[in-house]
Protein backbone atom coordinates (compact mmCIF):
# COMPACT_ATOMS: atom_id res chain seq x y z
CA UNK A 1 0.00 0.00 0.00
CA UNK A 2 1.37 3.38 -0.97
CA UNK A 3 -0.25 6.76 -0.56
CA UNK A 4 1.46 10.04 -1.49
CA UNK A 5 -0.51 13.29 -1.52
CA UNK A 6 -0.15 17.08 -1.42
CA UNK A 7 -3.40 18.61 -0.24
CA UNK A 8 -5.04 21.58 1.45
CA UNK A 9 -7.44 19.55 3.54
CA UNK A 10 -6.60 17.98 6.89
CA UNK A 11 -5.76 14.29 7.28
CA UNK A 12 -6.85 11.70 9.83
CA UNK A 13 -3.73 9.95 11.15
CA UNK A 14 -5.76 7.12 12.65
CA UNK A 15 -7.59 6.43 9.40
CA UNK A 16 -4.31 6.47 7.46
CA UNK A 17 -2.74 3.97 9.87
CA UNK A 18 -5.78 1.72 9.55
CA UNK A 19 -5.23 1.71 5.78
CA UNK A 20 -1.53 0.87 6.26
CA UNK A 21 -2.33 -2.22 8.29
CA UNK A 22 -2.30 -4.93 5.62
CA UNK A 23 -1.42 -8.63 5.38
CA UNK A 24 2.12 -9.24 6.60
CA UNK A 25 2.30 -6.08 8.68
CA UNK A 26 3.77 -6.59 12.12
CA UNK A 27 4.07 -2.95 13.09
CA UNK A 28 3.56 0.60 11.94
CA UNK A 29 5.43 3.79 12.73
CA UNK A 30 4.30 7.30 11.97
CA UNK A 31 5.27 10.93 12.38
CA UNK A 32 2.74 13.76 12.47
CA UNK A 33 4.13 17.25 12.05
CA UNK A 34 2.14 20.07 13.65
CA UNK A 35 2.41 23.83 13.11
CA UNK A 36 4.26 25.09 16.18
CA UNK A 37 3.76 28.47 17.83
CA UNK A 38 6.99 30.50 17.95
CA UNK A 39 8.76 30.49 21.35
CA UNK A 40 7.80 34.13 21.89
CA UNK A 41 4.33 33.76 20.36
CA UNK A 42 2.98 36.03 17.65
CA UNK A 43 2.53 33.51 14.86
CA UNK A 44 -0.93 33.67 13.31
CA UNK A 45 -0.40 31.07 10.58
CA UNK A 46 2.02 29.42 8.21
CA UNK A 47 1.45 29.71 4.49
CA UNK A 48 2.78 26.77 2.52
CA UNK A 49 3.61 26.97 -1.12
CA UNK A 50 4.90 24.15 -3.36
CA UNK A 51 5.95 23.34 -6.91
CA UNK A 52 2.99 21.39 -8.33
CA UNK A 53 4.09 18.35 -10.28
CA UNK A 54 7.67 18.40 -9.02
CA UNK A 55 6.56 17.95 -5.41
CA UNK A 56 4.55 14.82 -6.13
CA UNK A 57 7.48 13.35 -8.12
CA UNK A 58 9.91 14.14 -5.31
CA UNK A 59 7.68 12.51 -2.67
CA UNK A 60 7.10 9.40 -4.85
CA UNK A 61 10.87 9.10 -5.21
CA UNK A 62 11.34 9.21 -1.42
CA UNK A 63 8.74 6.45 -1.07
CA UNK A 64 10.58 4.42 -3.76
CA UNK A 65 13.85 4.85 -1.86
CA UNK A 66 12.33 3.84 1.47
CA UNK A 67 10.75 0.75 -0.10
CA UNK A 68 14.07 -0.20 -1.70
CA UNK A 69 16.04 0.29 1.51
CA UNK A 70 13.75 -1.40 4.04
CA UNK A 71 11.27 -4.26 3.90
CA UNK A 72 8.00 -2.41 4.02
CA UNK A 73 4.42 -3.51 3.55
CA UNK A 74 3.40 0.09 2.93
CA UNK A 75 4.17 3.77 3.36
CA UNK A 76 2.31 7.07 3.43
CA UNK A 77 3.45 10.66 2.87
CA UNK A 78 0.87 13.46 3.13
CA UNK A 79 1.91 17.12 3.08
CA UNK A 80 -0.56 19.96 3.49
CA UNK A 81 -0.29 23.30 1.68
CA UNK A 82 -2.11 26.61 2.01
CA UNK A 83 -2.77 28.46 5.27
CA UNK A 84 -2.25 26.50 8.49
CA UNK A 85 -2.62 27.81 12.03
CA UNK A 86 -0.60 26.75 15.10
CA UNK A 87 -1.82 23.39 16.37
CA UNK A 88 -2.96 22.18 12.96
CA UNK A 89 -1.50 19.15 11.19
CA UNK A 90 1.05 19.92 8.49
CA UNK A 91 2.72 16.65 7.48
CA UNK A 92 2.29 12.91 7.98
CA UNK A 93 4.80 10.15 7.22
CA UNK A 94 4.27 6.51 8.09
CA UNK A 95 5.64 3.08 7.23
CA UNK A 96 4.49 -0.44 7.96
CA UNK A 97 6.61 -3.56 8.01
CA UNK A 98 6.84 -7.05 9.43
CA UNK A 99 9.37 -5.63 11.91
CA UNK A 100 9.55 -2.49 14.04
CA UNK A 101 13.11 -1.55 13.08
CA UNK A 102 12.26 -1.17 9.40
CA UNK A 103 9.04 0.74 10.10
CA UNK A 104 10.75 3.17 12.53
CA UNK A 105 13.80 3.77 10.35
CA UNK A 106 11.78 4.23 7.15
CA UNK A 107 9.50 6.76 8.85
CA UNK A 108 12.45 8.80 10.11
CA UNK A 109 14.06 8.60 6.66
CA UNK A 110 10.92 9.88 4.93
CA UNK A 111 10.52 12.90 7.18
CA UNK A 112 14.25 13.78 7.23
CA UNK A 113 14.55 13.57 3.44
CA UNK A 114 11.31 15.41 2.83
CA UNK A 115 12.60 18.48 4.65
CA UNK A 116 15.42 19.08 2.17
CA UNK A 117 14.41 17.24 -1.01
CA UNK A 118 10.80 18.24 -1.66
CA UNK A 119 9.95 21.71 -3.03
CA UNK A 120 7.87 23.29 -0.27
CA UNK A 121 8.30 26.79 1.13
CA UNK A 122 6.89 28.21 4.37
CA UNK A 123 6.04 31.82 5.11
CA UNK A 124 5.17 33.00 8.63
CA UNK A 125 2.14 35.24 8.89
CA UNK A 126 2.50 37.19 12.14
CA UNK A 127 -0.20 38.71 14.34
CA UNK A 128 1.47 42.08 13.66
CA UNK A 129 0.47 41.70 10.00
CA UNK A 130 4.04 41.13 8.81
CA UNK A 131 4.86 38.07 6.73
CA UNK A 132 8.31 36.58 6.24
CA UNK A 133 9.73 33.54 4.54
CA UNK A 134 11.23 30.84 6.73
CA UNK A 135 14.93 30.22 6.09
CA UNK A 136 16.28 26.72 5.54
CA UNK A 137 18.03 25.16 8.55
CA UNK A 138 21.50 23.68 8.36
CA UNK A 139 20.46 20.98 10.84
CA UNK A 140 17.95 19.71 8.25
CA UNK A 141 20.69 19.35 5.62
CA UNK A 142 22.80 17.47 8.15
CA UNK A 143 19.92 15.12 8.96
CA UNK A 144 19.46 14.40 5.24
CA UNK A 145 23.19 13.80 4.74
CA UNK A 146 23.46 11.53 7.79
CA UNK A 147 21.38 8.92 5.96
CA UNK A 148 23.89 8.61 3.12
CA UNK A 149 26.65 8.00 5.68
CA UNK A 150 24.67 5.00 6.93
CA UNK A 151 23.75 3.72 3.46
CA UNK A 152 23.89 0.05 4.43
CA UNK A 153 22.53 0.32 7.94
CA UNK A 154 18.92 -0.37 8.76
CA UNK A 155 19.11 1.61 11.98
CA UNK A 156 18.71 5.30 12.57
CA UNK A 157 21.81 7.37 11.88
CA UNK A 158 23.99 7.50 14.96
CA UNK A 159 24.04 10.60 17.08
CA UNK A 160 20.79 11.99 15.70
CA UNK A 161 18.85 11.36 18.88
CA UNK A 162 15.71 12.29 17.01
CA UNK A 163 13.35 9.51 18.00
Amino acid at each position, binding site marked *: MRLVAVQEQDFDAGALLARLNSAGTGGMASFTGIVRQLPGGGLRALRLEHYPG*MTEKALERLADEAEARWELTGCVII*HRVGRLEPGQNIVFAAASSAHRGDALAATAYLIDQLKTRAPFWK*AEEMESGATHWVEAREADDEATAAWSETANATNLPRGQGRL
Partner: protein
Amino acid sequence: MRILYFAWLRERIGKSSEELEPPPGVDTPRALINWLRARGPGYAEAFSDEKPVRCAIDQEFQPLDAPLGTPKEIGFFPPVTGG
Protein backbone atom coordinates in the same frame (compact mmCIF):
# COMPACT_ATOMS: atom_id res chain seq x y z
CA MET B 1 10.85 27.64 -22.19
CA ARG B 2 8.57 28.07 -19.21
CA ILE B 3 10.27 29.78 -16.26
CA LEU B 4 8.68 29.45 -12.83
CA TYR B 5 9.38 31.47 -9.68
CA PHE B 6 8.53 30.47 -6.12
CA ALA B 7 8.39 32.03 -2.65
CA TRP B 8 10.19 35.40 -2.37
CA LEU B 9 11.52 35.15 -5.92
CA ARG B 10 7.91 35.09 -7.16
CA GLU B 11 7.00 38.04 -4.92
CA ARG B 12 9.94 40.18 -6.03
CA ILE B 13 9.52 39.39 -9.74
CA GLY B 14 5.75 39.82 -9.46
CA LYS B 15 4.71 36.72 -11.39
CA SER B 16 4.73 32.97 -10.84
CA SER B 17 5.68 31.94 -14.37
CA GLU B 18 6.35 33.16 -17.88
CA GLU B 19 7.26 31.82 -21.31
CA LEU B 20 10.63 33.13 -22.53
CA GLU B 21 13.19 32.23 -25.18
CA PRO B 22 16.66 33.17 -23.92
CA PRO B 23 19.28 33.88 -26.62
CA PRO B 24 21.92 31.33 -27.68
CA GLY B 25 24.81 31.28 -25.24
CA VAL B 26 22.53 31.10 -22.21
CA ASP B 27 23.61 27.55 -21.43
CA THR B 28 23.34 27.22 -17.63
CA PRO B 29 20.80 28.32 -15.00
CA ARG B 30 23.41 30.85 -13.78
CA ALA B 31 23.67 32.35 -17.28
CA LEU B 32 19.88 32.47 -17.41
CA ILE B 33 19.84 34.37 -14.09
CA ASN B 34 22.30 36.90 -15.52
CA TRP B 35 20.08 37.37 -18.57
CA LEU B 36 16.89 37.65 -16.47
CA ARG B 37 18.48 40.27 -14.19
CA ALA B 38 18.47 42.76 -17.06
CA ARG B 39 14.72 42.40 -17.61
CA GLY B 40 13.70 44.84 -14.88
CA PRO B 41 14.15 46.04 -11.31
CA GLY B 42 12.07 43.19 -9.81
CA TYR B 43 14.33 40.62 -11.49
CA ALA B 44 17.45 42.52 -10.47
CA GLU B 45 16.26 42.55 -6.85
CA ALA B 46 15.21 38.89 -6.85
CA PHE B 47 18.52 37.78 -8.30
CA SER B 48 20.77 40.39 -6.63
CA ASP B 49 22.42 37.56 -4.68
CA GLU B 50 22.65 34.10 -6.31
CA LYS B 51 23.70 32.36 -3.11
CA PRO B 52 20.19 31.65 -1.81
CA VAL B 53 18.85 30.75 -5.29
CA ARG B 54 18.20 27.10 -6.17
CA CYS B 55 16.83 25.68 -9.40
CA ALA B 56 15.15 22.71 -10.99
CA ILE B 57 15.42 21.81 -14.66
CA ASP B 58 12.34 19.92 -15.86
CA GLN B 59 11.37 19.40 -12.20
CA GLU B 60 14.72 17.92 -11.08
CA PHE B 61 16.97 19.81 -8.65
CA GLN B 62 20.17 20.91 -10.44
CA PRO B 63 23.17 23.07 -9.55
CA LEU B 64 23.25 26.57 -11.08
CA ASP B 65 26.15 25.52 -13.32
CA ALA B 66 24.42 22.44 -14.76
CA PRO B 67 24.02 22.34 -18.55
CA LEU B 68 20.69 23.95 -19.37
CA GLY B 69 19.96 21.93 -22.52
CA THR B 70 16.53 22.61 -24.02
CA PRO B 71 14.18 22.13 -21.08
CA LYS B 72 10.43 22.51 -21.14
CA GLU B 73 10.57 24.29 -17.80
CA ILE B 74 13.00 25.68 -15.27
CA GLY B 75 12.07 26.72 -11.74
CA PHE B 76 13.93 29.20 -9.52
CA PHE B 77 13.35 29.25 -5.75
CA PRO B 78 15.02 29.63 -2.33
CA PRO B 79 16.19 26.58 -0.33
CA VAL B 80 13.19 24.40 0.49
CA THR B 81 11.56 24.53 3.95
CA GLY B 82 8.89 21.81 4.02
CA GLY B 83 8.06 19.30 6.73
